[in-house]
């Protein structure tokens, strides 16, 4: 009953049950998905059409082609809120305690959360990409490079998952979650999502360039063959390795912290 194989089997089965819970949420309130898509779509429309005319892409190119990979990346970072809310709601309502008092696999709660949030991100990315195609955005370097770009975006989302789980277990209630959500904004906007760092004052450009989100966005632009790639700095020239390294570093920090935090619940 306690062999490694059966434990792994239960972890996967229980994890799937937790994932299914999220899918049922979606089935019970489909409008929630629409609401969560409203924000990125409105941002794309606002920046793409309202402000886009006044924006120039360094090296030339269509602003909307520049914008879309940025919006993909920003949506991955804002996905943190979803994880954060799910984790802190379960903790404050006592659902986490209920899970812990049950004979289910302990890692399944996290596994299930992970699968559910990544699945959600895949759906959101697909819909956003569909909107992008309608607005004239496209990938120009083949499907394999595009798939790699989407992979990098999900890799960033995966890292944000652990940040979300950690913060969700740390914060005592919904009010603090609101505060944490607001703190995600500067992190999201101090990036190359909407404008190239070349257009900013030097010190700000440096901060923006080293933002993990900028690395992912730049790498995605490169792989999609969208404009606005490159620059003189080391960070700009090495977007691809950075887009791999940043999420790895975030995961290496926040995964063990989340596990520790979860274990501490029984202290």
């Amino acid at each position, binding site marked *: 009953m306690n062999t490694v194989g059966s434990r792994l089997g*239960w972890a996967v*089965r*229980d994890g799937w*049950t*937790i994932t*299914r*819970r999220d899918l*049922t*949420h979606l089935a*019970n*309130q489909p409008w929630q998905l629409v609401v969560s898509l409203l924000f990125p779509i409105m941002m794309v429309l606002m920046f793409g059409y309202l402000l886009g005319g006044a924006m120039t892409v360094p090296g030339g190119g269509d602003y909307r082609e520049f914008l879309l990979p940025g919006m993909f990346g920003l949506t991955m970072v804002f996905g943190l809120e979803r994880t954060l809310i799910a984790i802190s709601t379960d903790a*404050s*309502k*006592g*659902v986490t*305690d*209920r*899970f*812990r*008092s*049950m*004979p*289910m696999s302990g890692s*399944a709660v996290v596994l299930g959360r992970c699968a559910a949030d990544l699945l959600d991100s895949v759906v959101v990315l697909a819909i956003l990409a569909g909107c992008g195609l309608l607005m004239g955005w496209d990938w120009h370097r083949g499907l394999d490079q595009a798939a790699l770009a989407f992979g990098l975006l999900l890799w960033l989302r995966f890292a944000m998952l652990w940040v979300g789980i950690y913060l969700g277990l740390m914060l005592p209630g919904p009010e603090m979650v609101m505060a944490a959500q607001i703190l995600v904004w500067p992190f999201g906007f101090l990036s190359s999502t909407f404008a190239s760092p070349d257009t900013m004052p030097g010190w700000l450009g440096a901060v923006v360039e080293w933002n993990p989100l900028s690395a992912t966005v730049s790498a995605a632009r490169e792989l999609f063959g969208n404009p606005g790639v490159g620059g003189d700095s080391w960070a700009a020239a090495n977007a691809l390795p950075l887009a791999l390294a940043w999420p790895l570093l975030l995961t290496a920090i926040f995964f063990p912290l989340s596990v520790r935090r979860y274990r501490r*619940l*029984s*202290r």
Partner: protein
Amino acid sequence: MGNAVVAAGLRKAYGGGDKRHVALDGLDLTVPAGTVHGLLGPNGAGKSTTVRILSTLLRPDAGRAEVLGHDVVREASRVRYLIGMVGQNAAVDEILSGRQNLAMFGRLYHLSGKEADRRADELLELFGLAGTGRKPVKEYSGGMRRRLDLAAGLILSPRVLFLDEPTTGLDPRGRTEVWSAVRTLVEAGTTVLLTTQYLEEADQLAHDISVIDKGRVVAGGTPDALKAKLGGDRIEFVVHDASDLAPAAALATRLGDGEAEIDEDARRVGVPVKDRVSALIALARALDEAGIAVEDIALRRPTLDEVFLTMTGVAA
């Protein structure tokens, strides 16, 4: 039958340094199988900490505890198959329907999909929630939510059920609903350990009560025994005419076991008695023979509130 729950010398402190707070300070507890045991105490007495340790959610700093003979720390995963835990919040998913909640928890208790669905339907029926259909839990009333929460704790028909303040925040109707659900369980042989701040609740449900304060058990016994500890019974009656108060009090003093007291405004006479029933009969007969018209007569025992106040110094 043996003991369902045994705890000895449980200690637990939270935090460290200046913020160190001792929640349990050597708590002992024994709950015989098939009984309802009430943990009664003021806020912060250590009730929830006790239940959280017994339900494997928290490790004690010292002492040991067993549920049905299994150590709650070393054999935690075994214990989790035997217990049901219902915490202070209604720990259910608000967006799912009642049935979806129970089916999910059933799967997490490692029932097959089919069994989980069947058990969900049974429990919905048992707790009067069968008609709720696809309605999400957030549209439930407080009482319905709590009943669903109870149902979720009963998926594996646990032999020991922990209820942490099961009726806190419920209206009287919701409270009655939960009480009757608990009684049904106990009839089926479940052992229940219940924490409550409501003395009435302990009085209604529990066979035995442990009064805890500052992390220790300060008194224990049946509700009746606890009340008896505080003092005897009283007979109180109200006379129709105020002019009858003096002769009625004289009669009461003669037949009772102490000096009768008169409350002029309420036209009420009270007297302590030892043998409650025969004293009541004798007094009723004597009043009748003396031609004193009585509007109301009753036996009164000290309430658990009074017991509680005396033992912990905190008014509940």
